[in-house]
């Protein structure tokens, strides 16, 4: 009887885990789809379709610490833009990036989730709450 209950509990919680990870995955997929639309509209020209950037001018977003590392810093770059000398993977880039604070929290979360999981990148998703928090501290 007890054994049966434990088994049943395990089964139910296991099913729950499957359901929740499926929700995560479909949530990620939806965020990626929306994120690609934001990327294509606002980011692709400078950072290029493959995230490889433009030599000397616009930095790559594939395989760089600035994209794969701190989410706070990455969200900050989108909100504030970037125009300081910065070495990325051994190269410097001269074009300024304008502030993209006009994007909604959801759009920023989506596009950052997209770039952190595209072009060979693999990193955790960025949530709306994380964007909200950085934007609040930014003011």
């Amino acid at each position: 009887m007890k054994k049966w209950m434990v088994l049943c509990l395990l089964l139910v919680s296991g099913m729950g885990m499957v359901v929740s990870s499926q929700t995560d995955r479909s949530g990620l997929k939806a965020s990626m789809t929306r994120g690609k639309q934001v990327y294509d509209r606002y980011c692709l020209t400078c950072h290029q379709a493959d995230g490889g950037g433009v030599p000397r001018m616009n930095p790559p977003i594939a395989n760089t610490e600035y994209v794969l590392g701190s989410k706070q810093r990455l969200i900050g770059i989108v909100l504030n833009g970037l125009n300081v000398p910065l070495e990325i993977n051994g190269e410097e880039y001269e074009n300024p990036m304008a502030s993209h604070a006009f994007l909604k929290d959801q759009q920023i979360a989506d596009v950052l989730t997209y770039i952190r999981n595209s072009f060979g990148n693999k990193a955790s998703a960025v949530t709306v709450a994380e964007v909200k928090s950085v934007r609040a501290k930014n003011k």
Partner: protein
Amino acid sequence: MKLSFLLFSTLAAFGVASAQSPAVSIKVPAGFAVASVAKDFGRVRHIAVNSNGDVYMKLEKLNKGKGIYRLRDTNKDGIMDDTLAFGNYIGTGIAIKNGYLYASSNTDVYRYKLDQQQNPVNPDQPETIVTGLVDKRQHASKSIALDNAGNIYVNIGAPSNACQEQDRKQGSPGMNPCPILETAGGIWQFRADQLNQSYKEGIRYATGIRNCVGLDWNNEVNELFITVHGRDMLYQFYPEMYDQKKGAELPSETMYMVKKGDDCGWPYVHWDHFQNKKILNPEYGGDGKKTGAEKAIDPLVGFPGHMAPNALLFYTGNQFPEKYKHGAFIAFHGSWNRAPENQEGFYVVFVPMKNGKPTGKWEVFADGFSGVDKVTNLSAVKHRPCGLAQGPDGSLYVSDDNKGYVWKINYNK
């Protein structure tokens, strides 16, 4: 055996290519032949060839701590066997005139006296000719050209796309008048033999020039000619006025003859080679049709957008067929702002000219530098033409700032 190994290792270490090993296939018109003379020097911007055949390369990223490399063929067998490296600064401009080598950083212009053997007398201590020019990273490279009256012309690119209050921010209005034009966005003239000149000693020779990377003195008409990079983001910021295709083709990249006091119209207008008009920029109230800056001069040629004309050279040699004499070669670095359309450029163009005016349509002269059929991403591009120079034998040299190659183009009939 030992000697040949030594020679080989020296060549390999300095990346001097043997004359018959181009890495990509460069296509040139019938009768011409291409050989690479240098490879893997990194960001080789402009180049200059001396009367004895020495090739000078200005680097935008230090290579083993040096920013200028000179290649020499000591035994005249067609292979550059001697390398001299000096200059601890990065930059773009390099030129030779009246026994001096001139080179620029992103803020200064220096010169080196050349001795009887054509060696720099004091390669570690050049004279500073010009200093303190604007360098705000964007469009910071300083191209140079010299006339026959003792003047040097320096491009000071505008650190901006369209002089908006907030650069490259969608919806930010253009500043009127544009304050950037006081110290940038033009060509400045200095004396070629005076030390430590800056804005106070120089003359703003021509203005309204967003970023001219190619400039050359035309000795046939004794005037300065420039090639200019047009603005970015017409489609990206104003899709209601410029669709994806139009935004890729516009604005034109341009070639001008500029005289003292000329204004080329930036940031108020851009050239549109379909309408043949100076079109008011949207940041200044333009709608894609309204014209503006009526006092600004018109270009001599409008090329398709964003191809980045990085070098201009008037051909004065006797080696190439007659049609090339006095004409202009232009090295197009290749675009990025055409995305999501395919990119364009990555070739050397020829404009037939006489008396400083085009006499026919421009044509692609040397192509294939990108190494790919269609450029969809800049990361796939192998080489980007950046500098041009004419050898004493009338050959044409082309440099590449992606991998640091230099090619020599000869006419063999």
